[in-house]
C-alpha cells in the first residue's frame, strides 16, 4: 500500500482510533457496566448508612468508571466497578468518619465471582420480555399508560395528550418519570426479586 500518495494514512488511522474510544467506551458502558447495577447497588446499600445518598454514590461510581474507560477499557468490568465503588466509599468514610471502616471491607465476598459472566449479560429473549413486562407493571398507572402509548403503539406526545385528556407537559412528565423508573427497575433491582415462579 506504499504506492498510494497518502503517506500519513497510518497516522490518520491512529487518530481515528483515538477518537473512536469515546464510542467504544459508551458501548462498553452500556453492555458491560449497566448490567452490574444491581450488584453495585447491593454493595453500596450494604456499606453505606445514609440511604438518601445511594443514588448519588452510584452516579459518582459510574462517572469514574466511564472516565477511566475513555482512557482504556478495563479488561474485567465487575472487579473494576466494585473496586471503584470501594475506593469511593473508603475515601468518604475517612473524610466523614461516620461509617465504621470495616463495613466497607467485604468486597471480596462480592468480587469472588468476578470471572463468572454477570447474570444479566446472557438473557434468553423470553426472560428479557418477562423482565420488561414486570418493569412496566411496576410503573405508576399514568406513567405506564403514557409509556405504552409511546413505546408500544408509537404515538406522538400530542396524540398521547389527546388520548389521556391532559396537556403535553403532563405527558412529558409521565414519560420522563417512566424512563427513570424503568432504568431503576431494569438495572437496579436484584434479579431474583423480578422473577415470578
Amino acid at each position, binding site marked *: *500500500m506504499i504506492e498510494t500518495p*497518502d503517506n500519513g*494514512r497510518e497516522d*490518520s*488511522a*491512529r487518530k*481515528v*482510533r483515538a*477518537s*473512536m*474510544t469515546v*464510542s467504544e467506551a*459508551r*458501548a*462498553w458502558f*452500556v*453492555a*458491560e457496566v449497566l448490567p452490574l447495577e444491581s450488584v453495585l447497588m447491593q454493595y453500596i446499600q450494604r456499606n453505606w448508612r445514609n440511604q438518601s*445518598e445511594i*443514588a448519588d*454514590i452510584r*452516579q*459518582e461510581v*459510574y*462517572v*469514574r468508571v*466511564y*472516565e477511566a474507560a475513555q482512557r482504556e477499557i478495563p479488561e474485567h468490568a465487575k472487579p473494576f466497578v466494585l473496586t471503584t465503588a470501594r475506593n469511593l466509599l473508603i475515601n468518604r468514610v475517612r*473524610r466523614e468518619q461516620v461509617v465504621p471502616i470495616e463495613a466497607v471491607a467485604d468486597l471480596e465476598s462480592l468480587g469472588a465471582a468476578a470471572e463468572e*459472566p454477570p447474570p444479566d*449479560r*446472557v*438473557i*434468553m*429473549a*423470553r426472560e*428479557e*420480555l*418477562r423482565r*420488561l*413486562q414486570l418493569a*412496566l*407493571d411496576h410503573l405508576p398507572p399514568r406513567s405506564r*399508560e403514557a*409509556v*405504552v*402509548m*409511546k*413505546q*408500544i403503539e408509537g404515538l406522538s406526545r400530542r396524540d398521547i395528550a389527546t*388520548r*389521556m385528556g391532559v396537556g403535553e407537559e403532563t405527558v*412529558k412528565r409521565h*414519560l*420522563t418519570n417512566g*424512563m*427513570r423508573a*424503568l*432504568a431503576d427497575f431494569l*438495572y437496579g433491582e436484584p434479579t431474583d426479586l423480578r422473577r415470578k415462579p
Partner: protein
Amino acid sequence: MSASEHSLPDASGVEECAAQWLERRSCEDWSEANDVELETWLAQSPAHAVAFMRLEAAWNRTTRLAALQQPMRHPLKPAPQTSRVPVLKIAAAVLVTAAVSIGGSLLALHQENQTFATTIGGREALALGDGSKIELNTDTVLRMARGSGQRKVWLDRGEAYFDIKHDATHPFVVMVGKHRITDLGTKFIVRQEGDRVEVKLLEGSARIDANDGAPAHTAVLKPGDVAVATEDAMSIAKKPVKLLVSELGWRRGVLTFDHTTLADAVAEFNRYNRRKVVIADPSVAKLEIGGTFPADDVTLFGRAAKTALGLHVEDHGGNVVISQ
C-alpha cells in the same frame, strides 16, 4: 477529572435533565441542530453522559415489547380520536397480549425445535440449561432441537458464537449447510453465507465433517484455526487467536478494523445496517482503515472515511456514498 472528592453530584437533578433530553429526542420535531445541542450537553460532563446512556439503554429495551403487540394491533386499534376509556382498555389488552405471548413461547420450549432469529443489526444471547452459551450476530436464524437430551442446533443463516460446556456423552452438534460441527469442549464462531461455511476456533477443539461422510472433508480444529468449507472443498488457515477475539467485537456492538481495506470494512458494516455504505469509486476500495466503530453508526463510519482517508462522503437517499 471532574469527579470531586468532596461533594457528590446531584444525581437526581442530572437524571431528570437526561430524561428530558431523551423525551425531547423522541419527538418528531427533533432536528440536527438539536443533535448538536444534545452532544454538547453530553460532552459537558461525564455525569451527563452516564445518566443519559443509562436511561437511553433502558428505554431502548422497552421497544422490544412492541413486537409482541403486532398480532392484535389491527383488530384492537380504534379510530384515532376516541375518548379515554377505550385507550385504557387497549393498554390493558397490550399487556395481556404480552403476557400470553411469553407464556406461549415458554410452552413451546417443551415441544419441538425452537427457532431464534435476529434482524439486520440485531443481536441475541441464549443461555442453555447446561451452561453453554450461544450469541447470534446480525441477520441470523438458528434452530434448536429440544428434548431427549440431544444437543443440536441448525445455523440456517448468519453467524453465531458458541461457548459450549463439553459433555462427552452428549456432544454438541451444529448443523450448517452441508456440514456438521461437533464440539470437543470449545469456543467457536460459525458463519454461513450462501454455500460457504466458515468456522473459527478460539478455545478447545471441534471437528467439522461434511454430511456426505467423505474423509477428505473432515478436520479437527485447534485454537486459531479458520476453516472455510464449500460444498466440495475445505481449506484451513491459521490466525492468531487474539485476532479472532478482536473480530468478536460485535458481541459488544462494535466492529474493529486494523489495516482493513475499505471494501472489506464496508462489506462488514453493511451486514449490520439497513442504511448501506456504497463505494462509488473502485480506486478507493483498497485504502486501509483502522479503529473501533459502533456497528450501528453508518454516519460515524462515513465521517471517519472522510477525515482519516480524505475521501468524499455524501448522503444519498439514506445511503452513505464514498468516492475519491
